[in-house]
């Protein structure tokens, strides 16, 4: 199911180019914000939860998910180099699964680790806030990576669609329309985070069971569908 060569090519494609700079920019920004907030307001659990919930989980994690998820396959399909993977006796779902693992690992590394560091800087993991948001970032990384990998497989405009989902749907509609919040990776991962803290600092619009089921369902269905799409991927060529 996992092909180390596909993984190596994907890692190098993801981390070798300008994409690595973009991937690194948001975590650096989060750390800078955290240091500044800590310096100006001192330790405050509510502020820590606001920064981690409002910036780290609501903005940084999905954007990194978009970059890593779509970047794990989109550019190869775009420029046609995916042909070197497809012209091999390797099962298409293996290619997708391997790329998913890489996308998850990269999203986790660039989102969960900085989230934890920021939480430690903000309030030293008081009330388990750092750990809770780190767990939320970890589980969200899985679902985002799967979702955006699928987007990268089915459309050339995956980054645009991904950002629209992450920023417009989750951030904007999520804050305006209650229903949109139920269908949001962010809320599902918050449900898991809520379980970690137990308190009211981290809350979600969905229950733990619903959140978990939806996270797993989205990941599995998106990955399966991406594998199917790759099986019948048409390389249009220049004509």
């Amino acid at each position: 199911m996992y092909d180390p060569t596909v993984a190596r090519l994907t890692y190098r494609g993801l981390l070798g180019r300008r994409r690595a700079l973009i991937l690194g920019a948001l975590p650096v920004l989060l750390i800078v914000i955290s240091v500044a907030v800590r310096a100006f307001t001192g330790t405050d659990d509510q502020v820590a939860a606001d920064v981690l919930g409002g910036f780290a989980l609501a903005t940084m994690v999905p954007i990194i998910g978009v970059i890593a998820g779509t970047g794990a396959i989109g550019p190869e399909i775009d420029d046609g180099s995916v042909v070197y993977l497809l012209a091999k006796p390797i099962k298409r779902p293996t290619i997708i699964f391997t790329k998913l693992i890489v996308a998850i690992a990269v999203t986790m590394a660039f989102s969960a680790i900085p989230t934890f560091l920021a939480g430690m800087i903000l309030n030293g993991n008081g009330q388990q806030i750092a750990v809770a948001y780190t767990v939320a970032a970890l589980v969200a990384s899985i679902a985002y990576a799967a979702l955006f990998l699928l987007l990268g497989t089915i459309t050339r405009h995956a980054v645009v669609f991904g950002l629209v989902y992450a920023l417009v749907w989750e951030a904007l509609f999520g804050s305006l329309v209650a229903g949109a919040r139920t269908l949001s990776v962010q809320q599902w991962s918050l449900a898991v985070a809520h379980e970690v803290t137990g308190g009211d600092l981290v809350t979600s619009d969905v229950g733990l069971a619903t959140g978990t089921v939806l996270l797993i369902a989205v990941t599995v269905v998106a990955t399966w569908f991406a594998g199917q799409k790759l099986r019948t991927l048409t390389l249009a060529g220049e004509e």
Partner: protein
Amino acid sequence: MTTLNIDHVSRWFGNVVAVNDITMTISPGVTGLLGPNGAGKSTLINMMGGFLAPSTGSVTLDGQAVWRNEQIYRQIGIVPEREAMYDFLTGREFVVANAELHGLGKKAAQKALATVEMEYAQDRKISTYSKGMRQRVKMASALVHEPSLLLLDEPFNGMDPRQRMQLMDLLRRMGDEGRTVLFSSHILEEVEQLASHIEVIVAGRHAASGDFRRIRRLMTDRPHRYLVRSSDDRALAAALIADPSTSGIEVDLQEGALRIQAVDFGRFTALLPRVARDHGIRLLAVSPSDESLESVFSYLVAA
């Protein structure tokens, strides 16, 4: 020995028919797929390589379906036309990765790099390669698993004459080894120099098939030009022009020869020696003056 069968294959994109009911068999040896740009060559090669489903018809390799059958790539090597190829890797890393994806190791990769004579630049990043070097590394990546069918889409594009000759030698060698090699080109001299067998595609249709002299003979309705020298050019010209198989004769005084345009190939070839004998004229030389692929091709494109 591997044979690729294309059976009544059509492919359309929306309202545009890119490939129209093509049936052909690609046998061991070197086959050239010839046609102008936009004729449907790439679409056809993509279907042969299993990257595009035929709208109707089937493509099979020794009886096995090519579409949605990744195991078929154990036998197929593909050299795509597009340039992109993991430019952030070195040539060696790229070929090694391709070997690994076939379940092979560094040894196979090194052998393939040696075959295309790219060892001297194997540790440079692909992004620094010239077009010809890229082409050769692509070739190496297609050869690592020693495929019995090799598909190449416009392989000579952008190559300098020396590189072109090297690649032609290599493909000729592959063909002689009994592999099935198919390459597409819109450049006539390439096909003429390399392919023992030619398939011509024009506007999505299979226009002709065979060695190119045979293709030419098949098209008896097109004008054929001959250069004829004889003991009495003017008398021969007068006798020939009386027959409807000849549409024009020019007496080329400088060359000391007749330039004859024949419209009925079969009839003219029978007529010429008979007329000469009847009139007691000696034929000194009869040669087709346009036996180049160019003329066949331009005729096909115009038709």
